[in-house]
């Protein structure tokens, strides 16, 4: 039986971690993810979990601690945001290349500078090539559900990669909303035990973890990492499907909203997808054929799914809550265009950089984007593809 509650996104993540009862949490506080280790450390001191909580002195140490413990055979978690994730950078790559399925709750916040505590995706988008699986939530419910799935994905022998469960800082992390929870024993059973094949404390088969990798082997190891990421597509689909069976909430790599006959569409990630759905409902009631593709899983990139979903559209806007500063595109647009390259009847594509540093995204913002798409459909002229929205004076 589902438990009906009202929780913020951070509360939902902390509670899910309590239900999972991981072996180790290494964490250092940073806004807006601070509440996750804060609430979790309460569970530890109240004896509700038997997790080893390590209050480290920096995020670099948090990830290092997770790497050491996970390599020893423990299931490890951490949480961070923004510059905290940036300080982990070096160790993110180490975790992925050592094939350690650590779980990180990323509460997305703008990277400095200028210093800012509010939401955008510059932190996790910057880590997109670190070899981590990345799953993004629209609301507190999805944050909770994705966390329930994280370890089954990462720890699968076909995958063995770390997983980042992302949600939008403040917008969902600090907003109280209704949520349906699963019982503790259901979550525990679903997540299961972590049983790695190799680990440092396995005395009958000693292994070295993370040694220097010389030229004759390095590229083979990186290739294996690439293969694991490819194999994760099917594992993620399978885990989401199994989660649907216990929760009634089924997910896929992307979510299509009113795409059946859509002529114009946006591609978007995170909480603004919910705002966009409301805007699309309003436009649909006016007879406009608008739709949305929400990217839930950004790593691995669901190129085939996106190309298929957009195949009937005339014009598409890809929304980026982070800039690449390549003077051309944001990261989501670049990869979406690559997914559509060479496809017949590909739609006309534009890119919007939006919502940086907590710039509010309303239904009005989304309607402006669709107005631009309508103009492209009417005139047949795409114009500038690299656009910004919500900037004063534009």
């Amino acid at each position: 039986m589902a438990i009906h509650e009202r929780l913020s996104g951070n509360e939902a993540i902390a509670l899910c971690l309590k239900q999972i009862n991981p072996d180790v949490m290494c964490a250092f506080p940073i806004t807006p993810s601070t509440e996750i280790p804060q609430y979790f450390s309460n569970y530890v001191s109240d004896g509700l979990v038997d997790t080893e909580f390590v209050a480290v002195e920096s995020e670099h140490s948090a990830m290092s601690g997770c790497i050491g413990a996970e390599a020893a055979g423990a299931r490890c978690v951490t949480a961070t945001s923004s510059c905290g994730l940036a300080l982990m950078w070096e160790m993110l790559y180490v975790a992925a290349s050592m094939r350690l399925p650590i779980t990180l709750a990323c509460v997305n916040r703008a990277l400095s500078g200028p210093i800012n505590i509010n939401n955008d995706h510059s932190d996790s988008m910057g880590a997109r090539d670190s070899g981590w699986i990345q799953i993004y939530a629209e609301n507190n419910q999805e944050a909770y559900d994705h966390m329930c799935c994280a370890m089954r994905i990462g720890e699968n022998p076909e995958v063995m990669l770390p997983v980042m469960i992302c949600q939008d800082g403040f917008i969902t992390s600090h907003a109280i909303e209704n949520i349906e929870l699963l019982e503790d024993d259901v979550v525990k059973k679903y997540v299961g035990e972590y049983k790695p094949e190799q680990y440092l404390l396995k005395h009958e088969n000693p292994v070295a973890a993370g040694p220097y990798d010389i030229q004759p082997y390095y590229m083979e190891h990186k290739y294996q990492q690439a293969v694991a990421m490819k194999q994760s597509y099917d594992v993620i689909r399978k885990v989401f499907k199994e989660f649907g069976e216990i929760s009634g909430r089924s997910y896929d790599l992307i979510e299509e909203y009113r795409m059946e006959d859509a002529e114009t569409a946006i591609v978007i990630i995170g909480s603004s997808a919910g705002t966009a759905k409301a805007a699309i409902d309003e436009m649909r009631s006016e007879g406009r054929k608008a739709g949305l593709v929400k990217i839930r899983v950004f790593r691995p990139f669901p190129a085939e799914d996106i190309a298929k979903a957009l195949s009937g559209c005339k014009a598409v806007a890809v929304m980026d809550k982070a800039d690449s500063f390549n003077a051309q595109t944001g990261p989501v647009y670049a990869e979406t265009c690559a997914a559509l390259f060479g496809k017949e009847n590909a739609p006309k594509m534009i890119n919007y950089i939006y919502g940086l540093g907590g710039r509010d995204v309303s239904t009005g913002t989304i309607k402006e984007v669709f107005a631009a798409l309508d103009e492209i459909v009417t005139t047949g002229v795409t114009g500038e593809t690299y656009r910004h929205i919500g900037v004063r004076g534009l």
Partner: protein
Amino acid sequence: MNNMIEIRWHGRGGQGAKTAALLLADAAFVVGKYVQGFPEYGPERMGAPITAYNRISDERCSVHSNIYYPDYVAVVDESLLESVDVSKGLKEEGAIVINSCKEPEELRPMLKGYKGRIYTIDAAGISKAILGKSFPNTPMLAAMVKITGVIEEQAFIDQMQKSYEHKFAHKPQVIDGNMQVLRRSMEEVKG
């Protein structure tokens, strides 16, 4: 979503406007509503103007933006009328509730042409009289429940009793005072 009520709270850092918004979400959840309660964070410090929001409806709301056209506005600190456009976007068929010992119509000239209903409540006075200190958010919460009608009054009182019993389990002596504040605030809000 025609049945959705959107509320914007204006307060100063430390007065509990955010807590009031979260408590209202909590109470509405308990009576079976879909709720959102969220603050707008900036460089927060004691005394700086802050904003918090509520959406309350019979079905889940997927919008995650600030509220620009609220049905109701709560002003936890009267001095904000001088520096913040508190009635901006406020629907004329809605209402504004202000923590003030003045008569509602006395405040209308400060509200930049707003034509809708105005209510006042001496939140600071009620809180000081009963609790000995100014906690304006509790009276404001009660006044908002009364004016918005978003929760049936008795259901709200019952829920708050339970919530205080849980929250103040370690100091039960403050429960009665807070309940008195809630009841008296519902009676004394004027407009």
